[in-house]
């Protein structure tokens, strides 16, 4: 089969993907909250915030560091450098639990009294920067995919002799319920967003750009439309029906371009490079303002939070500090989540830090997120199968997972699962399908 379809123009798109679900988007809690700035007194900056090798620490306790200073250097091809997010003194080398539970080394920095920060102002010479220089800036700035996967962005931008990227796809779907960080960025920094895209277009000469966004964000759509006038030849807008997981890379590519990424392959295989809104703005800031990736927009939301907000948070800020800044948690909070409610991680407590991939901190209540501790038998209703965007049959993962036959789970295609959680969402028996997939993926292939 061949899937090299002709490029799609900005005409009405009829493409979509199969499967998917329609959870309550719950975005109204935070979608109208202007982005605020948060200034922590102490940060703990993990050296491993991205997919790939951890960074190597360049500082020791007692060192004075300034905001934006390189404190961890990239170690290896797939890695990213780490910069200090505040000006202060390195207190200690500590270890922290990342939101996903992994314990990693971190650098604790205490802000010096009366630290003064200059604004990162735009420089004017970016228009003449070459593609290779741009790539170097992106790499040196420690930019990773801010949608949550934290894949080092420069790897996605690398020139490739075999495959040509002809389409840059901007992921503005933000399909996880509650999260509004990208939405606020589009509304509040549209120029930076579009300029970031033009930088990507410089890197991939001759490519076109499609911005994929769901039709439940009309204000953002209008804002983008206003700002891409003048760029119509290279930037178009794909308005997609609301459906989770619209923002999953492969689903978005299918919906916005009609192309199908071969199973087990990367988007590059079909000539597409996908970047999240936050990442694009980070690229803009790095190139135009010389600002490394030292903060990100985090949505603090959920029915259990006193004051939902969108906050620009320095990397390494303690979640507890951030929750305190939002008035703390209501007594009804029954669950704390980093990321979205579908693919995020449950937090036992607020004793973790914001890293580059943390798109939100959610305080959920029993009403919206009931504790379903008991799972029942599979009644073969087929809902999981119809919801799976990857055409898998999650019910079978459950069948073999119950017997701990992880090899069989793998053979049934668990490796193709990107753990979007649609199957668990629809399962009337609350079966641990994604859980089994996660286990199966960690099992080494064969041990005799």
């Amino acid at each position, binding site marked *: 089969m061949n899937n090299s379809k002709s490029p799609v123009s900005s005409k009405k798109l009829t493409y979509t993907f199969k499967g998917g679900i329609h959870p309550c988007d719950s975005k109204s809690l935070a979608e109208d909250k202007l982005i605020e700035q948060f200034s922590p007194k102490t940060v703990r900056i993990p050296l491993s915030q991205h997919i790939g090798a951890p960074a190597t620490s360049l500082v020791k306790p007692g060192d004075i560091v300034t905001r934006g200073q390189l404190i961890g250097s990239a170690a290896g091809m797939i890695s990213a450098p780490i910069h200090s997010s505040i000006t202060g003194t390195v207190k200690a080398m500590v270890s922290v639990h990342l939101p996903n539970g992994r314990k990693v080394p971190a650098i604790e920095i205490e802000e010096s009294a009366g630290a003064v920060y200059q604004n990162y102002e735009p420089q004017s010479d970016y228009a003449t920067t070459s593609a290779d220089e741009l790539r170097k800036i992106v790499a040196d700035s420690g930019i990773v995919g801010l949608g949550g996967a934290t894949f080092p962005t420069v790897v996605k931008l690398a020139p490739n002799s075999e495959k040509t990227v002809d389409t840059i796809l901007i992921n503005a779907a933000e399909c996880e319920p509650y999260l509004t960080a990208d939405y606020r960025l589009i509304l509040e920094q549209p120029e930076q967003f579009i300029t970031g895209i033009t930088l990507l277009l410089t890197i991939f000469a001759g490519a076109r750009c499609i911005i994929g966004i769901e039709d439940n964000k009309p204000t953002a759509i209008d804002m983008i439309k206003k700002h891409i006038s003048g760029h119509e030849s290279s930037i178009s807008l794909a308005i997609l029906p609301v459906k989770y997981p619209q923002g999953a890379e492969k689903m978005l590519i299918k919906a916005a371009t009609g192309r*199908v990424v071969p199973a087990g392959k990367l988007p590059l295989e079909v000539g597409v490079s996908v970047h999240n809104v936050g990442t694009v703005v980070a690229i803009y800031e790095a190139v135009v303002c010389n600002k490394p990736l030292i903060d990100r927009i985090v949505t603090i939301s959920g029915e259990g939070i006193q004051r939902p907000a969108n906050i620009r948070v320095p990397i390494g800020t303690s979640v*507890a500090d951030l929750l*305190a800044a939002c008035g*703390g948690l209501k007594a009804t909070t*029954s669950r704390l989540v980093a990321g979205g409610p579908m693919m*995020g991680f449950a937090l036992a407590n607020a004793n973790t830090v914001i890293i580059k991939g943390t798109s939100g901190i959610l305080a959920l209540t029993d009403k919206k997120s009931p504790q379903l501790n008991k799972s029942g038998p599979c009644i*073969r*209703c087929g809902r999981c199968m119809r919801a799976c965007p990857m*055409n898998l049959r999650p019910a079978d993962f459950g069948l073999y997972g119950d017997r701990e036959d992880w090899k069989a789970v793998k053979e049934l295609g668990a490796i193709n699962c990107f753990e979007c959680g649609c199957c668990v969402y629809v399962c009337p028996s609350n079966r641990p399908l994604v859980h089994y997939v996660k286990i199966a993926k960690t099992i080494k292939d064969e041990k005799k």
Partner: protein
Amino acid sequence: MRNSTLAASPQDSSQKSKDFPISLGPFFHTATSTKSIMWTVSAALAPAALAGVYYFGPRALITILISIATALLSEFGYQKLVKKPVSLGDGSAFLTGLLLAMNIPASCPVYVPIIGSFTAIVLAKQLFGGLGYTIFNPALVGRAVVMASFPRELTTWTAPLSWHTAIDGITKASPLGILKTEGYQAVVNHFGSTSSMYWNMLIGNRGGCLGETCSLALIAGGLFLLARGIISWHIPLTYLSVFALMAFTFGGSHPFSGDALFGILAGGILLGAFFMATDYVTSPMSWQGKLIFGAGCGILAFLIRTWSGYPEGVMFSILIMNCFNPLIDRAFVKKPFGAGYNG
């Protein structure tokens, strides 16, 4: 567990106090549960069951209650015996008991629903591993067993509305029984006219099993399940349309002269197509599989009705197709998204 003290001590990094529960996501879930599905199906059956009570009197209500009670007791007893968690609340045993009662004559001696329900729950369901592991539709296995054991009791029908006259025990043949022994014209004569025949079969004023006679109530219940997304159209539509096509083509004295509508309204095919062939556990998951399953049921039901010794074929058609269910499901495993593409 609650933790509302975070705001009070945000800098305290050793929060040992109360932790939130940790589990893997997603943290959102639909409201649809196994329990809600089972009770919705039971609710969809209620109009037809009530119609049965209306036509066949308090006797019908007693049969329903005995059947459900036996099903619940059997499930409870078995699960206690083998020390499995008791799962009466999921509604599946209730539904099986209700379905069994609707599939036997209202006037059956009380031991018939007792034996039928017990067989359905213990033999057909629990011994196979309980909910989710059954190969054959439990209620239909129960019915098959009582059918084989008590053929006379299972074919003695109460005349509808005879309980009003207080003369108990008026028996009346079912339309399919008359068709089998005396032919189509005899059925029309039985009702007086063709239109009267259709009308009475539509509203349920005929001899037959407790819950199968009121076609209108069954169709309404089936449409309700379709609208609620509990069942999909694939099995009912193929079952009914393939059966109708067969009945029209081969059911008359010469080809293409059969009365398909009569075939649909007489007997238990509506009950079977909407409520029993669609049982999740014993029917295919893929839509292609559902089409084959439904079509197979339609063909078998017609063949059994027309050329076997039995007047009705719905039960066996579904039980036979249940055998093929695992095979059908295996034939339609989709390729993962992106498989077969090579960029």
